[in-house]
């Protein structure tokens, strides 16, 4: 039996609307993953510490109100902490003009409104496998 994938679902920045992140956490749980769920309002250093201690394969960040602009800073902090193998995905409201910059910073996937359960679960499962073989 292969060990379940471990995913951190979190929100950084000041926005507290966490309904979407809870739904995604439940999707992943129902797909057999172990989901570490934090409330909103995490800081970059919190996410790095959480990912370190919980040894997650994927970090999912929910952003509805420009918090996604913090992701390049998160990517740098993760690399500095020796967590370059952890895959980071983003879900929520992401304007088209920001996508290239996020991709260039290393964000592995962006889920826009209308993404299906299957798309989210399959992509995160794939990235988790990738992270684990790179760890």
């Amino acid at each position, binding site marked *: 039996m292969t060990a379940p994938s471990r995913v951190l679902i979190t929100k950084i920045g000041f926005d507290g609307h966490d309904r979407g992140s809870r739904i995604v956490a439940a999707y992943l749980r129902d797909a057999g993953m172990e989901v570490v769920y934090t*409330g909103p309002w995490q800081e970059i250093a919190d996410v790095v510490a959480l990912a370190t201690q919980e040894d997650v394969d994927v970090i999912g960040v929910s952003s509805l109100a420009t918090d996604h602009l913090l992701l390049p800073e998160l990517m740098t902090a993760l690399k500095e902490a020796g967590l370059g193998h952890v895959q980071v995905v983003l879900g929520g409201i992401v304007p088209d003009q920001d996508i290239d910059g996020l991709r260039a910073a290393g964000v592995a996937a962006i889920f826009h409104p209308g993404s299906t359960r299957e798309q989210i679960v399959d992509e995160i499962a794939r990235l988790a496998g990738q992270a684990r073989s790179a760890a």
Partner: protein
Amino acid sequence: MTAVPNNSNSLLERLLSGQAIALAKSITAVENDTAQAAELLTGIQPHLGRALVVGFTGPPGAGKSTLVNALIVELRRREQSVGVVAVDPSSPLTGGAILGDRIRMSEHTRDPGVFVRSLAARGHLGGLSPMAARVIDVMDASGRDVVVVETVGAGQSEVEIAEIADVRVVISAPGLGDDVQAIKAGILEIADILVVNKADLPLAERTVSQLKSMLSLREGEMAEVPVLSTTATTGEGIVALADAVEERKGVAVTAEDRAARALQRVRRLLADATAQRVRQLIRAVDGANVDDLCAQVQRGELGVDDAAARLLRQLQQPEDRDGA
């Protein structure tokens, strides 16, 4: 900030030096029972037994995570480094889990003196996870002064924590049941310290007095178990709880005590590992044989215990052939 891992040192060395990433990776290896885990677990043996292991158990919603958070505040004030093992249930249907205990402990996330790891129970009954005892050992080896273990919200018979922890704290909350609940067998019996959390709620005093009168009916050590009141959200009563834990450490946890429990723990690990192997063997055994045994039981020709004995004999035979 954690330093970038230095791959020239082995994982074991980095674990023993207390590095956070190495601790996290070691726990993953142990939890997933990898080849590396066996090596690690052997390597840490000479370094075990230094941490004080404090177990927290009690029903869902009693405030275990919040109380653990409050205790961490006090332990940090006393300059103790802390490891937390927080177990949440896995879905019996999908194996998935939402691990949310640490939400209540978020004020400690960036404190390098506090390391919290969430474990999913992965189908294990008893309030812990299959590898919890080994994960606690790994935290001990990494040099944590105190390892706090929080069980799944436990019912009345999840007493596994009793064998693993040096100090066992059982949490109750007001309004969960009458005085008959308090005299039933189960988790109350394993407590070194009883805590009534949410002491700001009405009925809290009644719960305390019910527990005290329950204890007064017991004999010996059990009669001396302290009953404390806490309000975890405000920190009320937490100093007294930390004192009670420390007192247990000083008085009751003698070297002899620890050695006996360590032996008991290894015995338990051995029994668990053996049971695990037997389960694997049963899964691998020829289906027709098992079906045949089942049919005999259904027809009433064979008792289920006799059938089990026969199955066990069948399981032993291929092993004997291997050894020959």
